[in-house]
């Protein structure tokens, strides 16, 4: 087993909402970690950390020039800013749900 690291120590992120769709862009602090991010921050892992929201499709877009990945998660916001009973109706805080992931350490 590799050592696990907290994504938050290696990347920064911001979440956005449109209706019931969450988007989170995640950027490696160190450009040298971009390939690691691509390899480890998979659609499956992101879907896993939001599974309790009964999410729909997750898409991932690679941005090599910016050293980042953009995730678009359907049905992640319990109805979104106009319909969710949740405390964070926008889902603004969910960037940190991703940053809370533990991943195998970069080599």
């Amino acid at each position, binding site marked *: 087993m590799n050592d696990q690291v907290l994504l*938050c*120590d290696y990347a*920064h*992120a*911001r979440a*956005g*909402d*449109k*209706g019931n*769709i969450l*988007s989170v*862009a995640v*950027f490696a*602090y160190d450009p040298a970690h971009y390939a690691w991010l691509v390899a480890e921050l998979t659609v499956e892992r992101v879907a896993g950390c939001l599974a*309790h*929201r*009964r999410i729909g499709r997750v*898409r991932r*877009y690679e*941005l090599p*020039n*910016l*050293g*980042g990945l*953009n995730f*678009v998660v359907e049905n992640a916001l*319990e*109805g979104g*800013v*106009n*319909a*969710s*009973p*949740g*405390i*964070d109706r926008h889902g603004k*805080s*969910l960037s940190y*749900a991703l940053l809370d992931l533990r991943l195998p350490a970069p080599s």
Partner: protein
Amino acid sequence: MTTVHIGCGAGFANDRPDAALALANDLAARDGRRFLFFELLAERTLAEAQLRRLADAESGYATRLFDFLEPVLETCLAAGIPIITNGGAANPSAAARRLRQQLQGGRFAAARIACVVGDDLLDSGEVLQRWLPETLDGQVVSVNVYTGADGIVQALDAGADIVLCGRVADPSLAVGPLRHAFGWQAEDWDRIALATAVGHLLECCTQVSGGYFAHPGLKEVPDLANVGCPIATVQADGRVTIGKAAGTGGCVTERTVKEQLLYEVHDPAAYLTPDVTMDLSQARVRQVCPDLVEIEGIRGHPRPAELKGLVGLRGNWFAEAEISYAGPGALVRAALARDVLLQRCARLAPQLTPWIDLIGVASLFNDARGEWLQQRLADARDPQDVRLRISFVDADKALLETLLLDAESLYTNGPAGGGGVRRHLSESLGTASFFIPRTAVQQQVEWF
């Protein structure tokens, strides 16, 4: 060669009205063409504004529009800096009439005020019936189409000092001034995409200049309490830098710019606006010097054939109540309160499923079924301060009032030591989106 400086003084309706003063002063001291815009609309804002207009025909613009305009108005008018805003919301002409009245008899009585209208389809009868979704959950209170920069260009070309718009797309607030200043053609897709990227980076105001970014120990932001408004500087050849107002806090770094560049973007190769299909997939950022970042590699493709519209819907209510437990056994007492409320709700409103958070254990990441909370409870240590929050969204306002009062009754009927009950009930306006051919929507410029 012309240089254009565009500053953004607000990123949403409840942003800080005093922030734009340093921005206006900075812009006034710069050479070149200068513009200042305020972005004051969100998905729900127009529905709320339309309700205010229905109650009072001279209302319906952004509630704080004049709080934003007043601190910078004279500086901008004196320096020849046009102000552009979508804060006209549901009633740009009422805002224009008030502004005209305010300027009357003063030094700037001759200022030219333009309104860009045509986005509001609420009273458009046939057009609406044809393009609106067939089933809508609630009473329609607003229908607005995201329109592009054409009206702003027209107004600025004709000499407008202040342009008050309704629902133009946020980045169009920068596309308009750039097309006007450089004479860029509406179908010069790469240029329009560049202008759209400028608007997109600026439209949330300080979110590109150090706001919504700081994480002590990982991402430091100097003088966050005084975070400054952003300024984009654009050259005719398409070079763009993002900076911020002089003498303010915050920072503009590659990291702040990257976070904002992708903010609310889905496919980076195809960000759709009324003006263009913007392609950010090859974008690069480069720190030129402290607080100045250059953007390049933005490409454009033809704009979509259809415009997006939003219907504002009335009918639902958002209800929340909270109570706190602290000290020894805080968690077991809060968890018991949760069980009590679940049983009470099953009796009083069996058709409703309450959303329950235990703030301090699980709330922001929680879900409608409480599965996240359940998982966190399993490995929660011993929190000494837990706040229970129960909430609902439903059409039955009276029932929700009853349920909130029932939560408050935990004071006498719940576990020991509960305190700090707060109840909140507000209208929960919904939205539904639709698409409409751009030929069905006519933007117009009106003068006041």
